[in-house]
């Protein structure tokens, strides 16, 4: 009961801060200091948003972007999770990948887009690979940290109860590392979502939210650009809050392995 009240309260707070930001924007847009073509008012943006959703174009663009991000993100999980585990278990794997991660993770995925375009052409392949690049390292890194932080007492207890290597892995190490694995997925998705929009701006043709923004620049369609940004923000928000948030609530929070912030 208390939890649901707190969640309602946090929703009210969220709406409140968004409203304040929106009001400030609207005041600036209507102040007359800026050209309306550069700073469209909220009703104009809203009309464009509704219209592009109604004619299906915004939905289709978003679907393309989502397809690319999910594909690249899934690849990153499939590759990064086992590699992170292997790194934590075998010193040689760790010695090989750790410097690689340190060197490659700081390179902005956006900086690789022109190179990937030359290698893989324009379209889905390049964008998916950029997403994959952006998302794999946080996935690996967090999984590695998570496996290393598994309480040795759990391993001892499980060993004493007859767990072999295989079941130690699935029944103790994976759930034991789950707070880090979920954090890894969250960070991987956020980086993937940032990367996909950037990659689409130059490496996608005709479809995708990033492409829409870049294309709208040619025609000074700031309302389309801002409407697309709103969609990008909303999808990111939904994933972060509802999908990863509820994954966390159903698992590690329920198990008391991580707690909600108090006060």
């Amino acid at each position, binding site marked *: 009961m208390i939890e649901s009240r707190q969640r309602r309260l946090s929703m009210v707070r969220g709406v409140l801060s968004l409203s304040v930001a929106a009001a400030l924007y609207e005041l600036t847009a209507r102040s007359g200091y800026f050209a309306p073509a550069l700073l469209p008012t909220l009703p104009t943006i809203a009309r464009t948003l509704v219209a592009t959703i109604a004619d299906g174009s915004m939905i289709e663009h978003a679907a393309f972007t989502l397809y690319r991000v999910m594909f690249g993100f899934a690849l990153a999980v499939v590759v990064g999770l086992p590699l992170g585990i292997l790194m934590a278990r075998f010193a040689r794997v760790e010695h090989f990948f750790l410097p690689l991660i340190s060197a490659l993770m700081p390179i902005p995925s956006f900086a690789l887009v022109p190179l990937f375009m030359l290698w893989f052409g324009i379209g889905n392949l390049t964008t998916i690979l950029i997403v994959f690049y952006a998302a794999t390292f946080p996935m690996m890194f967090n999984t590695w940290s998570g496996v290393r932080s598994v*309480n040795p*007492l*759990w391993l*001892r*207890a*499980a*060993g*004493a*109860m*007859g*767990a*072999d290597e295989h*079941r130690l892995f699935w*029944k*103790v190490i994976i*759930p*034991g590392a*789950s707070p880090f694995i979920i954090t890894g997925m969250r960070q991987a998705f956020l980086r993937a979502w940032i990367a996909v929009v950037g990659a689409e701006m130059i490496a996608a043709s005709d479809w995708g939210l990033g492409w829409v923004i870049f294309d709208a620049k040619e025609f000074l369609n700031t309302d389309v650009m801002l409407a697309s940004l709103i969609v990008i923000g909303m999808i990111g928000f939904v994933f972060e809050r509802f999908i990863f948030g509820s994954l966390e609530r159903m*698992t*590690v929070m*329920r*198990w*008391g*392995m991580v707690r909600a912030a108090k006060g």
Partner: protein
Amino acid sequence: MVPIEIRDVSLIYDTPGGKVPGVKDVSLNIGASEFVCIVGPSGCGKSTLLNIIAGFLAPAAGEILIGGKKVDGHGMDRGVVFQDFAQLFPWRTALGNVSFGLEMKGVPKDERDKIAREQLRLVKLEKFTASYPHHLSGGMQQRVAIARALAYNPSVLLMDEPFAALDALTRDDMQRLLADVWRETRKTVIYVTHNVSEAVYLADRVIVMTPHPGTIKTEIRIPLPRPRDPLSVQFLDFQKDLLRHLGHATDASGPQKANGKTTA
């Protein structure tokens, strides 16, 4: 249940500061269904010895036989309870924790749930089968840990200061409960503690260890009838006797602090 033979067991810790003897030439015979407490000041090697018996550490010399079988690594003939509450798996309910060993043994789900429920009833937690560890108090978590160690029916129960982190009142309750559980299950128990009254309350025999290096100094039989009254004259006499041995044990190595009443 089975007897345990410990023959000339030694272990040396390799630390950055040099080689430190953990335990040296420890020999001890424990009868089937006997309750043995090992007491001694910090660093006397009592936990090390328990970890060797559990199979977590390999001795540098000597051997341990459980029911005539040589110990080599951990095995399902022994159940282990640690001091730290965090030993439970937080992602499993009380029932899930207790049934873990049975799951590893390949017992079908219905049967292992039934056995786990039975074990939780033994430690008076039948109402909390569906609770996750973080919703249970420290004492309840330790009871789950005991039930978990008993569930797959090992013949030996090894306990490393399981109640040391509990408050005094809860600890008294837990000692009573453990005495009941032992009476009902008749396991061979090796129980490490530095609490003298706990040892006198629980043990058939108390082994006193001294540090540097960890060796057995003496042993005291406690032939008092059960349930024991911690306020009876005989009980207090045994306690005094034990404290005297511990006092001598620490004379050589520094200030006296092994009065058994100190905090965990």
